[in-house]
Structure formats: C-alpha cells, structure tokens
C-alpha cells in the first residue's frame, strides 16, 4: 500500500527524467531575501524568466531588523539593507508576490506561509531554506533546496529530483504533561543522530501525532532538518483542513475541500525504515554540545562520550550537571518555536515573575500575525513586565549575521533549532530547548525547567 508521500509524489510526477530521476511539478516556490534574492538575480542574468509569477512568493525574514519600530529597509546586520532592497526590486520586476518588511502578513517564511494559506495540504512547495520541511506538517510535499534549484523551479515550474527513501517515525501513546513537540524532536535526534534521518522523507504518525495541534506538528517537522532528513510529512486530518480554510491565499473551492478530505488516508505502509518511540518516555530536553544530537533530558550530566571540541566550545566538562548552569541570555522565537502557542507556553511560565537581573531575554514573535494575536491576549505585557525585549518579526537571533548579539562566551538558552559553533554569534554558547525551558531558565538565571521554578522562583 503506497504511503502518503508516494501519493503526493505520484500526483506531482510529470515524467521520468531518466532511470532514477523524476520531473516533479512544483506548485509554489517561496523565496526570502538571504538566498532568494540571489536566485532571482542569477536567473535574470542568465536570461530566464519566471514561469508563473502568481505562484512564487518572496518573504523578507532572514536579516530584517527585529528592533521594535524598525525602518522599512533596516537590517540586523551591517550592510544587510542591500539584501532587502535588491530582493524587493527583483521581486517587483518579476511580478511575484512580495510580502515586504512592512506588510502586516510579514513573518518568518515557515510561520507566514501556513498563516497566509500559501502552504496547503497536497501542494508541492520548495524554498531555498533548510527548514521548509516544517510545511510537511500540513500534509504538503515541501522540502528545502539550494539557490540553483530555486532558480530551476522558478524558471521551469518543476524540479528534477531523485525520489528519496522513506522512513516512518511512529510515536505511540501521548507525551507527558509539560513535554512539548520540541522535546520530542530533540529526543529523536539525540537518540538516532543528526544524520539519523538518512536523507529519507520522514513521515510522523501514531497516537501522539494525531493529538498534536497544527502548530505542534510544524515544530516537530521543522527539526527534520536537524535530523538529516530529505523532508518531513504528516498525512493531513480534519485539524489541518480546519486550520488552512479561510486564509488569504487559501482556495475557497469545494473541489479543493473535497480533494483535501480525500488526502487523509488510513495508515500507510511500505516505508524503507521504521523508528518507534514511546511518547511516555520523552522528557524535557536541553542540548549541551554543538550539534542538535548532543541533547539530553534536563537533569542529566554531560556524557563521558562528549567530544573535546564541543566541551571546549561550550565551557563544560564530562559529568557536569546541565541544569543549574548560570546563563547570560534567553531567546524565544524562530521558525521552530515562534508561533502563538509557543509564546503562550512561555508566558504561562513567566507570568508574575521577572527575568534574572544578569540575563538578557528577547522574545521575537514569528510573524506580525502572531504578534498581533499575542498582544490581543496581553502576552506582550507579560513578556515586557518580566524584562523581555519584545521584537519585530523575523528570524532574529536564531542565527548571527553580523550586528547585535550576545557577547562571546555568553551562555544562552534558545527556542531555536541549531546550536552550532558561532550560530548565535562568535563564541556564543547555545543550549536548545522548548519555550517553557527557555522561559523558566530566563527567570531562574540558570538552566531550569518550569517545574523547578516554584522552588527557585523569582516573583515580580
């Protein structure tokens, strides 16, 4: 019986390009100013045009300033304005959809695309960004590519692709209270390695997935990039269909509704690899090293197998307790954990408390839509009153691009997806965790989970 991925692949398969490569129709191309601008420029230089501008979208997110009240061209990295202005100019010249820095729909591409109904169940969708796998959460055939492939998709409406092998990650039972989709993702990567996805299309299924909200699924699929997968996918259900209907770019079409309802299949089989996880065994996670696979449940100590380079960079030694390490910074945001439910979770932890005096804490909503909804709920007041900076949407402090960041050697707990050396700035020591753990750590001033806060508590 074909898998859901097989069904989408076949639906988009134009023809065999040779024995192993297929020509796959691409329904939507998403671009951003960091790598999309150069793709449009290079395409124009070669004399190719955009095949169907109405199905190509440029969204500014990577290096836009996250400063409240930012200017239209303001970048967070020195010289970064050019990426914004050049992408704007080329997007306008090409006649594609542009979601500019001052557009109320602007946000991180993987946050904005679902919100705007650009990403939909059953669509094929590519973007020159590794976290495009997030959109598999909606039941889309979505994957990250390079700039050259983006040029190819924009010019031809298709890609020449080798069908990946498939992996089923079946998650039995339900996650315990206080354990999030982020913890599940880190647990999976820590258990099977940063290359554990084996370049497969990874389908998540099972009872723990069925009860997840769409936002939780987006978080889980997002980190397939850190798992070394080709992409991630979850067969769409009623929750997804209810989520996508009525959004600005979403079709108001009975045919589409019927099509979506038929996509939701009974469980498929025939995957090349199967991993089973008992959700009840997953605990809140924290990374200690410089690869996302170097993660552990909070409360564990740095393992004896730790590599020297990672220990040196992180300023840790074997056997050291990770919980309780003093921190200098906390960041909540990104395409992994910058959605409304993430902010609600963090706010529930910090409500009535204050960030430790020596900690710089920053919260950047993933999009203007998230920010507006959060403000309507009064979450901004909770963050600001606690001592968080409340930022303007974009990728923000998930990665350093020059400009403002934490100091070298600073220890930062972050709701982002990568703890690579220098990822958040030269010498910055990143510990990845869920928004709940980031919020608790910001308040405690040390790495902490939300449960321990009542002991450590710092009340406003």
């Amino acid at each position, binding site marked *: 019986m074909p898998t859901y991925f097989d069904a989408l692949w076949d639906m988009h398969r134009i023809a065999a390009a040779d024995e192993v490569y297929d020509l796959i129709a691409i329904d939507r191309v998403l671009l951003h100013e960091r790598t999309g601008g150069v793709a449009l420029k290079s395409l124009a230089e070669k004399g190719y045009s955009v095949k169907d501008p109405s199905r190509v979208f440029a969204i500014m997110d990577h290096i836009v300033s996250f400063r409240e009240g930012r200017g239209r061209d303001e970048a967070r990295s020195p010289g970064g304005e050019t990426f914004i202005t050049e992408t704007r100019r080329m997007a306008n010249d090409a006649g594609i959809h542009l979601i500019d820095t001052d557009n109320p729909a602007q946000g991180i591409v993987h946050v904005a695309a679902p919100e705007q109904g650009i990403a939909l169940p059953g669509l094929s969708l590519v973007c020159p960004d590794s976290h495009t796998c997030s959109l598999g959460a909606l039941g889309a055939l979505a994957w990250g590519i390079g700039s050259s492939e983006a040029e190819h998709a924009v010019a031809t409406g298709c890609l*020449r692709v080798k069908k990946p092998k498939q992996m089923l990650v079946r998650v039995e039972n339900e996650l315990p209270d206080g354990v999030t989709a982020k913890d599940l993702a880190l647990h999976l990567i820590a258990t099977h390695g940063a290359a554990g996805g084996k370049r497969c299309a990874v389908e998540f299924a099972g009872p723990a997935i069925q009860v997840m909200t769409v936002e939780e699924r987006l978080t889980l699929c997002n980190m397939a990039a850190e798992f070394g997968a080709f992409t991630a996918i979850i067969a769409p259900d009623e929750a997804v269909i209810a989520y996508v209907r009525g959004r600005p770019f979403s079709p108001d079409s009975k045919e589409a509704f019927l099509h979506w309802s038929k996509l939701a299949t009974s469980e498929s089989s025939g995957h090349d690899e199967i991993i089973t996880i008992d959700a009840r065994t997953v605990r809140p996670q924290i990374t200690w090293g410089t690869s996302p696979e170097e993660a552990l449940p909070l409360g564990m100590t740095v393992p004896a197998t730790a590599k020297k380079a990672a220990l040196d960079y992180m300023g840790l030694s074997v056997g050291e307790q990770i919980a309780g390490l003093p921190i200098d910074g906390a960041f909540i945001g990104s395409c992994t954990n910058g959605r409304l439910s993430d902010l609600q979770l963090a706010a529930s932890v910090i409500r009535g408390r204050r960030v430790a005096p020596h900690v710089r804490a920053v919260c950047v909503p993933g999009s203007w839509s998230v920010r507006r909804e959060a403000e309507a709920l009064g979450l901004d007041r909770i963050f600001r009153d606690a001592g968080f900076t409340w930022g303007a949407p974009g990728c923000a402090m998930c990665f350093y691009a020059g400009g403002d960041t934490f100091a070298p050697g600073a220890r930062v707990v972050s709701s982002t997806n990568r703890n690579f050396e220098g990822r958040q700035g030269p010498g910055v020591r990143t510990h990845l965790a869920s928004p709940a753990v980031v919020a608790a750590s910001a308040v405690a001033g040390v790495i902490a989970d939300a449960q321990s806060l009542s002991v450590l508590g710092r009340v406003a």
Partner: protein
Amino acid sequence: MPDPLIRHTGIAAPLLIDNVDTDQIIPSREMKAVSRTGLAEGLFAGWRYRSPGSREPVPEFVLNRPGFERASVLIAGANFGCGSSREHAVWALAEFGFRVIIAESFNEIFHGNCLRNGVLPVVLKGVSDLRALGWDQATDLTIDLAQQTVERADQPGWQGEFDIDAYPKHLLLEGLDPIGLTLKSADVLDQFEQVDRVARPWVYKDYSAA
C-alpha cells in the same frame, strides 16, 4: 556554468570532523553581497582566522598548514554540509579551489548544491572510516569521474571507487545548465500542466486577488 569536471588531480586536505555545518563552511556574517562570488575569503572563517572579522590565520587549521594552502580535494567526516541550505557554502568552497569533496556522508541539500556548481561529492565504496586511510601528509589525489575512481600519489596501487547517478555525472562531465536541459522537455511540462489544471484548478488560481 561551471567548468566540466572529467578528471581532477589535486592536494587533499583533511577536515575529519563529523557534522560540519554550513555555518562553519561560510558564516552568515561573511555573506556580504547579493552574489555568488567574493566568498572564498570567508570559507571556514571561524576556524581559519583568529577572531571574527580578522584575517590573522590560525596556524593549526588545515588550510593554513604548509602544503595544504592550495588543496582542491577536501576529506571530510560524516554528515558534511548539514544545517542551513545556503548554497554560499559550495560557492565558497568552489571559489577557494575545491573541485572534489570526499566525505563519509553528506547532507542532502548540500550534496545537491555541490552537483550544481561543478563540485563532485564522493563517498568511497566500502570505506566507513576515512581517518583510517591517513591524511596527515599532503598528497595528490586523482579523481576520475568518467571511471568513478580515486587514486593517491603516495600509495601507488591503492584505488577507491564511488557511485554516482547518471544525471549528475552527465551534468558535471559536460558542465551543463540544468534549466536549459529541462526546458528542452517543455512539451511534456505543458501537457502535464494542462491535465493538472483540470484536476486541481485551485492550485493555479490566485485567491488573494479575489
């Protein structure tokens, strides 16, 4: 388009670390222009130079060691090129002079980016631990794409083999433009779209304009 790659001989530089990510290959702060060029100087900047923004070399880093400065074959560990999809990582490697990367395994997107920029990614058949082959002394490697073989100047008689699919092999050997190649099938693409427009009309309609 990149120069065709048929047979390449060059010095092999070992960087035998697992999970080397594209942030290490080219830090985002080194991507200063909307361009595919001007990136070689920023290659491995975090490891190659003493401090961010400086260009003072770290003598121990392989590309700063005597004999390796002009390496054109990189020997890497597992999951090389993981992380960000930035093609700048491959542009930086290529501009520095790398034509071949031999790794224990590659990240999917990085692997594809190599093939589109005239850089050959190689996984040697039957070799799970590249460290065991010994790379401390600078030596010339010859990679023959047509034959799919690797030979070492310092070990006559040793030969490695690798697999590559027909399409990427063709791209590299000929230095082809994939877009031009695909547009030759324009009829097939159009036929598919005509049928698909009937089956999935909503995909082709711009609802935001309504």
